[in-house]
């Protein structure tokens, strides 16, 4: 069963991190990724550039509407994701709890839809 772990974090707080703290976090992520690769839970995952780089696209009546910025202003922003394989939701939740940003941000766990 596949789950997508969406990682949300406050960009404002992230901007306050100094170089050293950033390096430490990157190392933590590296270690976490290695761990779930070793256990076979890792399918994929990436970090995203901040929401100031986002563009939102809609098509209405055949016309493409382009807006600068993310689709919604929120306190915490989507900053990355992992796509994981887990036997049960319990396992998926345990893995999500180990994602480094779960400590100050949050992780939304969503099952991936299957088409038969």
């Amino acid at each position: 069963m596949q789950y997508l772990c969406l990682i949300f974090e406050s960009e404002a707080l992230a901007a306050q991190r100094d170089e050293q703290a950033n390096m430490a976090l990157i190392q933590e992520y590296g270690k976490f990724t290695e761990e779930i690769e070793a256990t076979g839970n890792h399918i994929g995952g990436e970090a995203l550039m901040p929401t100031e780089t986002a563009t939102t696209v809609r098509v209405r009546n055949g016309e493409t509407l382009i807006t600068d910025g993310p689709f919604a202003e929120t306190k915490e922003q989507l900053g990355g994701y992992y796509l994981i394989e887990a036997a049960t939701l319990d396992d998926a939740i345990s893995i999500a709890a180990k994602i480094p940003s779960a400590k100050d941000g949050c992780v939304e766990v969503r099952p991936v839809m299957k088409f038969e």
Partner: protein
Amino acid sequence: MASFDTDVNAAYGTAFAVLTKRFQDIQQVEDALQHACIKAMEKQQFETIANVKAWLIKVATHYILDELKKHKPDYVEHLDTISPVDTAYEYDDATLGLIFTCCHPSLSQDNQLALCLKWVMGFDNASIARALLISDKTLEQRITRTKRKIKANNIEFSLPTQSHLNTRIDAVMKVLYLIFNEGYFGNSGQVLVSNTLCKQAIYLMKLICRTYRDNAASHALLALMLFIQARTPARATDKVTLLEHQDRTKWDRAMISEADMLLQKSLKQDRPTSYHIQAAIAGLHSLATTYENTDWQQIVLLYDKLLTYDYSTAIIVNQAVALIQIDRLEQAQTKLDNVAPLLLHYPPYFIAYAHLLEHQGCYGEAIDKLNQAVLLSKSEAEIAFIKDKIQYLKH
């Protein structure tokens, strides 16, 4: 026919638990059980079904297997090896698994409660909606949404693995605690329903304690339930009977001893939880020979401790009542005044305040507070009790 309906209702929860554990598909199981219940009613016109549970499980299993044979022939071969389930142990095991599914921490507590009442305890939607103070329609929507979430996330109908037990068991205990409290102190007003809730919560807690012997919190919670349940014979059925007015010779002493033993045992195992403190308070009441002889001093201290776990205004009100008993009236008044703005709609607050005023000799003001409580109360049993009290103060 009436008794047969009751048999089916009682058997439905177990059958649902066994079948979901076996097939892991809610919709399939609900369809099959509906079919089995109709068949049972037809059969019942000609002969008696000795074991309704086993019969429902058998007929529903055959129904599902027949359906599967039509659509997924390969899958069925694997299922044919399943042995029939008909021992009490296997029933209990399936029921326990079902509670864990209903109380999965990814579901909101309201939804956990609704599912438990429906699937584990077998209540109909109308009764559940009344108990949760929501409309039938809202309940149906919630249940539909929750079923979808369980299916989409592949939440299993089985016991959690040992490594996940700690994150799972707290939610189960909290829901059983809420169900018991609703049964004993709740506003549902129907004696029969209330009794069933308390008995079922205790039955399920016993199941949990038997399965997880090392879990101290669950033993403390069971002790708490038993201490309180033991007072049932001393309560009137039509109105609230305060501890103060209960005939203590009617209390179930065997149940109190059982609770006491459980609590002592659970205190040795682990650091105390809020259930331990609550059980200790209930225990002090149960062991006191009269209301006046209760160790109120100790109870006041335990409430202080309880507030460090869970700061709740309801606890403050109870603590104030304990303070009144040991004539610390000023302290009681300060406590009640502090929480007053938060409890403008909470009848027990006004009852406690009236109690304080009565001790201060202000009967007129006490009656005013009680009249306010009558206006706020939604429970007939509570209103009957308050009106008695008003009559008493008038004389």
